[in-house]
């Protein structure tokens, strides 16, 4: 009987579900005068968590191969700025602006990927460099300002344009006003990532590379190509997150996304994905997203200042990682 119990406890799915339950319990206890039970609270928690969740999906793919992508926060900012620039200030239609924005994200991923896989620079260093570079590019594109519906005129005044339709579409809700489109996008990204990791040849290659790169190589896995793909897809998903962020904020902010990479890593790690590679999965990442999202929401409805929220998130990540290593 104890053996069965031990095995259940060791299963990563169990642990992350327990973490989520713990957080929900926290919400019940500290329900802020019943605010926790309101539907709007849950809807908002999901909406805010969705951007993190999309990043978490991309991050999971990269971490499974044994790498890491520290640049996602900066690339998110870069894409949100580029997307806002094209859509709000230049008035380009979504059919043009969206693919270009996605391509920007994928291109950043390709650079990180080639530095890591082809030039064999440590992923930490390569993506750290990209993080700084992309942030710089985001600021260069806007000259440091935010890209908002207030378009600066040559004479120093501001002309107000309408928020583009695509922005309003992404930031809207569906299903009788209960489900944000952003959440739908997150779920779609989750489904795509899950399919790639669990049902595509590439997924098996990724797990093999993360678990034992030399064994993978000697089994005919095209290591360089597979690693590259991880970073490119992550860049693509980061671009999706960047577009959603721009729509939600109705502006492109070159300072956006600061620290998001750590949240994305936290989500993947709480979900049971091992930072050493070779283990983990998208389903667990989704649960990790909910955990982080609800934790953030519960703390905010209880008016815990941001400082406290950051510290608590840090503690929880460490606890999650320790739980991971003890269970093995």
């Amino acid at each position, binding site marked *: 009987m104890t053996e069965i119990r031990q095995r259940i406890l060791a299963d990563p799915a169990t642990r992350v579900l327990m973490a989520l339950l713990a957080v929900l319990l926290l919400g019940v206890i500290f329900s802020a005068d019943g605010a926790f039970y309101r539907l709007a609270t849950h809807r908002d928690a999901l909406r805010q968590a969705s951007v993190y969740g999309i990043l978490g999906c991309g991050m999971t793919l990269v971490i499974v191969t044994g790498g890491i992508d520290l640049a996602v926060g900066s690339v998110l900012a870069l894409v949100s700025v580029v997307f806002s620039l094209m859509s709000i200030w230049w008035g380009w239609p979504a059919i043009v602006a969206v693919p270009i924005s996605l391509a920007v994200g994928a291109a950043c991923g390709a650079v990180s990927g080639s530095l890591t896989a082809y030039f064999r620079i440590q992923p930490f260093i390569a993506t750290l460099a990209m993080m700084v570079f992309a942030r710089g590019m985001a600021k260069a594109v806007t000259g440091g300002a935010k890209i908002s519906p207030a378009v600066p005129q040559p004479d120093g005044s501001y002309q107000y344009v309408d928020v583009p339709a695509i922005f309003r579409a992404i930031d809207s809700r569906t299903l009788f006003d209960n489900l944000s489109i952003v959440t739908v996008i997150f779920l779609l990204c989750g489904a795509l990532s899950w399919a790639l990791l669990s*049902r*595509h*040849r*590439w*997924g*098996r*290659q990724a*797990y*093999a590379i993360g*678990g*034992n790169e*030399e*064994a*993978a*190589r*000697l*089994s*005919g*896995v*095209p290591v360089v190509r597979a690693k590259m793909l991880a970073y490119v897809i992550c860049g693509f998903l980061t671009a999706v997150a960047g577009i959603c962020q721009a729509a939600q904020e109705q502006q492109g902010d070159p300072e956006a996304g600061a620290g998001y990479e750590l949240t994305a890593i936290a989500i993947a790690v709480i979900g049971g994905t091992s930072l050493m590679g*070779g*283990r983990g999965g998208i389903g667990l990442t989704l649960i990790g997203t909910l955990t982080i999202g609800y934790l953030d929401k519960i703390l905010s409805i209880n008016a815990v200042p941001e400082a406290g929220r950051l510290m608590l998130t840090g503690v929880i990540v460490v606890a999650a990682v320790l739980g991971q290593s003890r269970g093995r």
Partner: protein
Amino acid sequence: MTQPQAAPVSPAVRMRGIAKSFGRVQVLRDVDFEIAPGEVHILAGENGAGKSTLIKILAGAYQDYEGSIEIQGREVPPSSPRERASLGVAVIYQELSLAPNMSVADNLFLGNPMERRGFVDDAAQRRRATACLAQLGLDIDVRKRVEDFPVATQQIIEIARAISQDARVIVMDEPTSALSIPEVEQLFALIARLKIQGCGIVYITHKMEEIGRIADRITVLRDGEFVGSAPASELPTAKLIEWMVGRKTETVVARRSASFGPEYLRLEGFSVRQRGAGANRIVDSVSLSVRAGEILGIAGLRGSGATELLLGVFGAYGELAQGRMFLDKEPVRFKTPGEAIRHGVAMITNDRKATGLVLSSSIIANMTLADLPRLSKGGWRSPAKEKAAASRLAAALRLRASSLGLEAGQLSGGNQQKVVLAKWIQTEPRVLLLDEPTRGIDIGAKQEIYRLMQEWAANGMAIVLITTEMPELLALSDRIVAMHRSRVVAEFSGPEMSAHAILEAAMGTEGAQRRTA
């Protein structure tokens, strides 16, 4: 041969009745070993004879053993490497234990720094290090990092470290495998100097030419048992080989008489360069041929280049491999293992945990890894197809696992090896390269693997087999080549295949070189 010590001197180290098991496997059984000061004592034996284990027990790497050890006449209990080092025992393993990114001086005093008022005294350490190395005939800048020096120099630095910690017994495990001829001479001169200073030297080697040069005394182990110990002058080559090989008549599997197909794999002047600068070849101009349905055995001891040969054929060395290779009379060149697999070549490496399996992945994932392109045409996998393939393979190989979803790391050694075999059989290879396929596996699983190999050969596969277990090599091979120092030195077939002759050739004995047309 050098003159043995004439005067009886009290031994620096005396080991008596040493026994050790790992689980149910008995690795050493009632072994005696004495090390006299000022003497070079060769410890000889085939792979798996127990030499490394004996040395590790002496060095303090294992505390769990039976028997007694006396150092300088005093009995010592099982202790840690640090304690044994303080008693004057130093071991220089093949994988040098220096910190490559630290300076030479720092390495010499690693763990034992010279201090001045609580801080490390760099100047004093540098002076002492330079003096130590000068004693050994080495004049280098001790501030430079260890990794900036060639391996031969690093070895001398490691010996200097041992000396500076007042080692009276220095054990060297295959020290010349990475050295060039002049560097080997340098090492031998150093050993002569150490002898004069009264150090007892234990030297593990497979190379007959070295035994001939420096041995004062030779001890032979076989299958974990002590065979004999004698002064070098009383142990000519023939007798030494006899001690090492014994007269085992253990029949593994009856050798089959088979008919072979046409030549399938052919190598002409195949070489593998060393990575980085340097003209060193880790495989030197090998030519051989294997017919369909034939099992070619390669006998080669540690450092002979056999493993590197197979890896080179398999495409694992990419551009570093040179020379010509033919598959079914067509010239081929593999730049990656993937290309080799596509051409029907498969390789089972000699370390399933390090390079054969992804231990964190499931049995099914491992079994289907090499055949992914065919199992997932168009990119998307079919779990049903994979499960079916894995079940078939598990049945054919008689794999014992409660579920195919188990992690490979949770299986026993024998079952892990079966997963590796399954992975490669799934690719339906025409050429199968095997490197020590039954290492670390119980006898039952070994027999099953032998049976499978013969079945595959009977079905027309060309098989190349590296193994250092002589009975296995003799029973399974239709022909045998011996490798020594990166080259093929002899070929045997039919009745010439005797353990004695093969081991002689693999050890580089003069006159054992022979090729049959």
